[in-house]
Every structure is written in C-alpha cells, then in structure tokens.
C-alpha cells in the first residue's frame, strides 16, 4: 500500500495565521496518518505551536483548509476539535490550578448523575483508573492541582487527552517539565498510543526525542515548513541544520554548513 492511497487522519492545507502584522504561520500544509507520529521541530517563534493551535481550535486559522478523514471541516473552537476526537496536551498544560485532578480531567465534559448534578465520585473513580495506568504513583485526587509536582500535573494533562478516545493527539513539548523517569513514561505512552492507531503530532525542542519517537519530521522556520522527511532519510545533524538555517541540506551553501560546524 502506498501513502497516496491512504486517507490521512488530518490534512492541513495552505494554513495562514497572523497576529497583527506578524505572519506566524504562512501557507503551511501538513498531514498525519493513523498510527503515525509526526515530529514538528523548529526554533522559538517558528510557528509550531501556532500551527497546532489552529488544529486544536485554540485559534482559528485566517485561511486554509483542514480535512479530517478526507473531509473539509471547520474548527473554530476547542469544542469543534474535541468533536473530531482531536485532543491536545498544551505546553502550559492548561490546568485550572484551583480545582482537583478529577475536575481538571473532566473539565468541560463532566459526568452527571441522573438528577443532573456533578457526579464527583464517578469522576474520581475514573480518574483513579486512568492514573493507575499512566502514573501509578499518583495518589492525590482531592487537592487543588496547584499543590502537585510538575510531573503529576503533566500526568493529568496526558490523562485528560487520552481518556476521551483521542484519534488525533497534539503534544506540545510533553516532556519539557519532566525528569528522566517521567520522560520515559511519556515515551512509553506515545509508543502505546501509536500501536492503538492514534495519530500524534509531537512538538519538541529535543531532537533526540523526536528522532526516537517520530515516523516523519517536519521542520518549521519563520512560519513556513522547510521540509517534511521520513526519519530514515535524514540524520539528526541535517535536521539541526534545517532548524538553524531554514534550508534543506542540499540548498545550504558550503559556507553556511562550515559556520554551522564551527558554531555547533
């Protein structure tokens, strides 16, 4: 089976996003297949997060099309994205610090009793089950999440994204705040989700993370995609060169590459 015959889970075509006069994302096209991890890399301000926010509904794209399972869809709010099973783990984690883990996990999708009240017991119960899989050390289900460690907070954000049967998962720097052991737990999660057929956009600063987990890698530079390549067709150094120079390896001049060697 060739790639051309499969319908991508997501296809973003000609996406533009600008803030005031700044073109944060310019004419970007990208796709993602079932069970695939697409790494998105680039320097600060390259437009990675902005592109993904257009898909997660956090900020509507100014122009361009988003296709889900081959059909053009309009995503203008986080609710729209969730309706298409697009879940996002934001870099900021997007947790409400003043409420507890179950309340955060079910925020916007609370379970109700038959009389229409919040079913906190059922939500706590389900949160305990999910957490047992993601982070067995997680025991604090009743304190505001403000009092939890970075790793525990991250676990809640991850649990929230995977509990609602995500088909498309956006992970923006999922391991940035974590220690080595927790990072390994997250990697394990990514591998498991992949085998379950979930498509994952993985934004990361860590080239090694990206190389370890991704099937394909998209490099962004100043709001544009420099190139999207299969992991097997490129080396980490070449990706680094693309991130810094904003050019494909074959486009870079000898002088630029030499400078890169010196600088690196």
């Amino acid at each position, binding site marked *: 089976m060739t790639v051309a015959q499969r319908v991508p889970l997501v296809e973003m075509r000609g996406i533009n996003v600008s803030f005031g006069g700044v073109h944060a994302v310019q004419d970007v096209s990208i796709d993602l297949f079932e069970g695939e991890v697409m790494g998105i890399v680039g320097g600060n301000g390259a437009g990675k997060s902005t592109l993904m926010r257009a898909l997660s509904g956090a900020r509507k794209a100014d122009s361009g099309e988003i296709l889900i399972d081959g059909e053009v869809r309009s995503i203008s709010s986080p609710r729209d994205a969730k309706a298409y099973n697009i879940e996002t783990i934001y870099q900021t984690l997007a947790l409400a610090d003043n409420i507890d883990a179950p309340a955060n996990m079910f*925020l916007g999708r*609370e379970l109700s009793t038959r009389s229409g009240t919040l079913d906190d017991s059922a939500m706590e119960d389900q949160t305990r089950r999910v957490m047992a899989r993601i982070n067995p050390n997680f025991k604090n289900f009743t304190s505001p999440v403000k009092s939890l460690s970075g790793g525990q907070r991250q676990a809640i954000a991850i649990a929230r994204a995977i509990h609602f049967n995500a088909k498309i998962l956006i992970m923006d720097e999922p391991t940035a705040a974590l220690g080595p052991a927790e990072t390994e737990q997250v990697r394990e999660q990514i591998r498991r989700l992949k085998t379950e057929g979930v498509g994952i956009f993985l934004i990361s600063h860590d080239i090694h993370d990206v190389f370890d987990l991704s099937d394909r890698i998209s490099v962004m530079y100043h709001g544009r995609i420099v190139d999207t390549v299969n992991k097997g067709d490129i080396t980490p150094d070449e990706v680094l060169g693309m991130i810094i120079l904003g050019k494909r390896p074959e486009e870079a001049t000898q002088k630029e590459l030499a400078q890169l060697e010196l600088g690196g």
Partner: protein
Amino acid sequence: MTDAAGALSPESQAGTTQLRGFRALEVDLRLFGMVAALVAILVGFGIATGGRFLSPVNLMNLTVQSISVAIIATGMTLIIVSRNIDLSVGSIVGVVGMAQVLLMTQIIPNAIGYEHPATWIIALVAGVLIGGLIGAFPGGIIAYVGVPSFVVTLGGLLAWRGVTFGITQGVTIAPVDPVFRLLGGGPRGSIGGTASWIVGIVICVAVIALLVYNRRRRRQFGFALRPRWAEAALGVVGCAIVLGLIYIANSYLWPPALARQWSQQTGLPIPEGGIQSGIAWPVLVLLAVTLVMTFIATRRRFGRYVFAIGGNPEAAELAGIDTRWTIMKTFILIGLLCGLSAAITAARIDGATLDLGAGYELYVIAACVIGGTSFAGGIGTIPGAVLGALVMAALSYGLSFIGLVGPIQDVVAGIVLVTAVGFDTVNRRRTG
C-alpha cells in the same frame, strides 16, 4: 531525586488512609474559623454590655440586618471567583426596590384593583425578573464585548441610581403590600414557634441524610471514609447547632403591646408565656438562597465552570467551556439576587427611598472578601460570604449598641476588613 512523581507529600498519602483526630472531621477550617470569629464578636459585645447584647431581639435584629447584603454576597462570590466585580449591586437594589413599591402602590392596583391578594407575589416575581434583566445587560457587555467589569458596573452604579431618581423625582413611595411586608422580618414577619421547630427538625433530618448518602456513595467507589465517630460527631453537633439556633429564635417573644393588639384583632387569647416569633421570613429566604447557591456553585456544571474560569481562564476556554455565556450568567444571577434583596429591604423599611441599597456594593464585596473569596480568582465559598455578611452586621450592630455610631463604625469596619484579609493572605502563603 529525579522521580518527582514518586515523591509523595504527607497530604497526598492522606487520601488513601483514614484521617485521625480533628482532621478526621474534614471540617473546612476556614469556615470553622469564621464561625469562631463570629462567636467571639458576639461574646465580646455580650461581655462589654453585661450580657444585654445577647438578647434574642438583638440577635434577631442583627441577623435580619445582614440579610440584604448576604443574599447579594452569595452571587458576588461567583462574580469575584471568576475574576470580575460588580459595583452596581446597590444601585440595582435601588431601582428594583423602587419598581416593586411602585408596582404595589400604583401599577398593580390600577390594573387588578386595590389590595388584591396576588399583589405581593406579582411585585416580588416581577422585581426579581427585572433584576435579572438588568444584570444581563452589563453581563453581555462584559462577556461578549470584553469591557472590564469594573468599568461597566461603575457605569451601572451611576446610571441606575439616576434612573431610580428619575422614576419618582426623588420622592419616597410607600407603603408596601401587607403580605410583602412579611419579607422584612420582625415579630410579625416571622413564622412562629411551632413552624420554627418543624423547620429545625427538617434541617436536622436533611443533614443526617446527606452524611449517610455521602458515606454510602464513597463506600460504593471504595474511597476513604471518615471514621464512624467522626460522622456521628458531625451529625450530632450539626443538629445541636440547628436546634440551638431555633431555640434562641423562639425565645424572642412578641412585645406585649403587639401581642395585645393581635389579641384584640383576632379575638384570640394570648398564649401562656407570650407569642414566640421564631424564624423570621427573611432568614428563611436567606437560608434557601444559601442552599441553592451552594448547590449551584458546587454541584452543577455552571459552578464548576465559574471556578475553572477563575483558576485559569485560558484553560477553561481550551477545555471547551463556553466562558462568555458562563460569565454572562453570573451577572444575570446576581441581578436576580439583587431583586430579591431589594424586596427584603423595601419590605423592612415599608417603602422605597431614593437611597435604597446605596453603598451595598461595598458591604457585599467586603462580606465576600471577609468570607475568604480571593480577588485573584478561583477561590471562595457561598457559606463564607454569608458568614462574612453576618460578621459585618454583628460588628456594626454591636458598635452602635455600645454607643459608637457613625464615623467610628466605618473606621472599625475598614480595619476589620483589612485585618481579616491580611490574616487570610498570610495564612494562605504559609499553607500554600
């Protein structure tokens, strides 16, 4: 230590084991502290006056005095929790109170006749609805246009007071309908001894039922339970407090002159030992409002969303919550509560004056803040706000009782406000 997730604080382990000692009661310490402060104020004034301050009539009066503020404070809590403010509540009370009295003195009599039995309910319901409509207006501007609530409601503070003046050209209008007047409290506006005991018993049954239900629910999911003695203690103490308060309310007897007048009107003899007032109607209204608002704040999605917005507005938005509609609803809600509060205030003074509700915004906000609501957003409780209103009323009533009136009262109120919040801030910083 690299595995931060594996490092458990003592608190996080507490979730899985049974708590011991006082903590087993799982009593909200902040609320407990407020109750203690209230009791201390009452006892303090009691000692200063040789016990005279603690007579049932004083306790009744100071409670009824706090109610107009307390009712609005329950709504203001949600507004402040969601990082907004409403400065227009006093002016809304003014305009709605004026509208209600106008309905009773002119509009309803002209439409369906004088002393029609439905007069009071039409005026009350219409007033509450007018309040809600008035609240929807700034709510919409704040939520959908994005103008800061401080500015919008500051405009409301000025504008609605002007409207109140415009309606009557500054004339006081009176009186209110006789049934409507019951909302103002006093001996006549109370439900009587027997009914009060019934209310007390109903509350006790509800408290016990709630404890049992929660325990059953937690056991069903295998969560940690309070020890049996703690559940029993909560039930017994809760019921004792309720019945004790009823006893105090019932020991307030109708003044002899009023009782004689009543006896002459009805032809009935005055019962042995006098006529017990019992719980005042406005106290029942406040009780109902507190229960409903607590239910909304803690058991309904809307309340959860208000708190989430206050904790992290962006996270609430990203979670798919309709944050704008939620904010607008908080302002509609406080408008409705202003309508109810206006009814009680107008009933108490038996009419509507130009300055009805003037200055309420400050007392309401102070009640919320004393009750533990944080201006940083995301933190606050409805019972706390009600207790805050009671603390303020107890202070001002107590000060005037010992002869300190006017300016000194305001100075004390200001000092208490800052001190209470100061303590709270330091305490919060210490405990995280």
